[in-house]
């Protein structure tokens, strides 16, 4: 495993990291490296920098440096934000299910036969590496789980929630009005859950869905209300 020196104070705020892989983390942009090398040549007897071999420290430092510039995802999220993200994701996953039976497994002997009638051996693989990849039946979450120590994982996962505003920001300006969500320029649209007309009523008491007229409310109570 390649371990690099922790960036000195001067470099610590650089957020650009050239990504390589989980086992090959370069903590500094290459330009900085060059710069340091040239500096080192100029002053050959410069003070020795401290070397930190703790990978967790390295990782945290990087997460914090990107957090300070912009409130991104990471360990600093509030529990409220996490609940929001979880319920939004659940809803989207529900919608993206195409059928009630979500998927099926390919039979063990399934392979595509090309024109010559020759099997292409879709599962076999030429090398041990590809053999493993071709027969893997893992879902995305297990890959995320495996890579959660990766420095860039926060930016990958954070992208999924860019469309949700932070509920409470740690910004000092906002301290007074905590828990009041950031205002958007446009009003939320309220659509009746029965007929999709604009709804000017309050939500249903028990489940929180909108309705537009008494008939719809009654129908809603009989059918959709939990």
């Amino acid at each position: 495993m390649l371990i690099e020196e922790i960036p000195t104070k001067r470099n610590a705020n650089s957020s650009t990291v050239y990504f390589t892989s989980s086992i090959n983390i370069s903590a500094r942009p290459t330009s900085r490296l060059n710069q340091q090398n040239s500096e080192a040549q100029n002053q050959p007897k410069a003070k020795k920098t401290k070397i930190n071999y703790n990978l967790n420290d390295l990782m945290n430092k990087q997460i914090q440096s990107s957090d300070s510039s912009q409130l991104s995802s990471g360990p600093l999220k509030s529990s409220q934000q996490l609940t929001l993200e979880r319920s939004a994701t659940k809803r989207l996953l529900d919608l993206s299910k195409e059928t009630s039976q979500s998927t099926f497994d390919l039979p063990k002997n399934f392979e595509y036969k090309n024109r010559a009638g020759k099997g292409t051996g879709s599962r076999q693989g030429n090398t041990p590496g590809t053999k493993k990849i071709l027969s893997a039946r893992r879902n995305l979450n297990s890959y995320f789980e495996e890579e959660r120590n990766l420095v860039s994982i926060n930016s990958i996962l954070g992208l999924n929630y860019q469309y949700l505003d932070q509920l409470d920001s740690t910004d000092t300006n906002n301290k007074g009005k905590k828990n009041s969500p950031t205002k958007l320029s446009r009003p939320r649209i309220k659509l009746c859950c029965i007929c999709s007309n604009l709804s000017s009523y309050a939500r249903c008491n028990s489940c929180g869905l909108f309705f537009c007229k008494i008939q719809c409310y009654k129908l809603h109570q009989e059918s959709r209300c939990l």
Partner: protein
Amino acid sequence: MTYLVVDNGSYSVKAGFAESNEPTIQHNAISKAKDGSLYIGSDYISTNNHSGLIFKRPHEQGHLTSWETEKPVWDYTFDLLSKKDINPTDLGLVLTETPFQLPQLSMNTDQIVFEEYGFGSYYRCIAPSLVPWTYAGDPDFSLVVDCGFSATWIVPIIYQSVYWKGVRKLPIGGRALNGLLREIISFRHYDISDEPVLINTIKESTCFMAQDFGAALKKKLAHECEFVLPDFKTTTTGYVRQSGQRGAGDLQSLVLTDERFVVPESLYRPEIIFDNAPSTSAILQTAPIKNLTDLVVEAIMTSPVVARPLLSQNITVVGGTSLVPGFSTRLEDELAKELPSDWKVQVVSSGDHKPDVASWYGGAELCQSEIIDKVTISKQEYYEHGSNWCQTQFGFRNV
């Protein structure tokens, strides 16, 4: 060297040689019919009954996870490309992936490309980054809105390279729209929750983007249309009954009004998706949710100051979901309201090409220029440096 361009979307794979006039489009899935028989790619279309098909897709939330599924689809597609067998060792491959794909999965892809197929040279990039190559005019600054099947990506591209800091994602794509349509129709009309092909057909043939949502909702009866459901004798896919056409007779049909524009509207008002769920949590009902416009504005504003007005007048819309009628005019309209009034907002169309194949044509153009030799890596280089090195060449820059 001859190049093969593969735009590996999560709904369909677009593949073809760079010299050819058009790509071969195949459904990127293996489907299983009710009787248990399996179909690769778009093969299922030849069967007459699309009812009850189940799809197994290699992509999960846009990330390519299942090579077990992807490889037969590729093999099948490559077979359709030419009369004789293709020999990958003499070929270069230009392949697309989702932005910010998990590096582990990208490296799996690299391994399959070189160790399984053995392509001679290889370039991997994200699909929107190929789009500027289709422009005849000034391709230096452009903002690509890729509204695909699993998500909508907003990607600023400055001097042919992706400005990673400005990339934004709205996790609503064709797939979520299908889900919403399925929910609404199953509640109001018939239960079609096990008919993914039918839902997709209904969406493609009836949905449109309202230019003024409020006005359209008030006069929703004006947008009424009748979709005739398949009876598997006269029609296997279903169709929209045109005015004047003979009545549906004993065929079952759906009368659609507001569904037609409420479903695509969820790109601009995501609360449509989150509000009317059977079990929404209270926190979601009050949360501020950004829509497509907010994210495009954000992407522009994150970019360097000088580039901002240039990006706003070079917005290109690609991806299958942007085929919804009225998509680009609506986006232009919404953005003009949000951006400074002295900036020109222009949503340019992707030339003569349909938006769902624009990235493929971009890739084909890229292969004609000499730049391709500088960006590809060869098989020798791969075997010398390994797949980690591939990722440093092609992967995103962490922001």
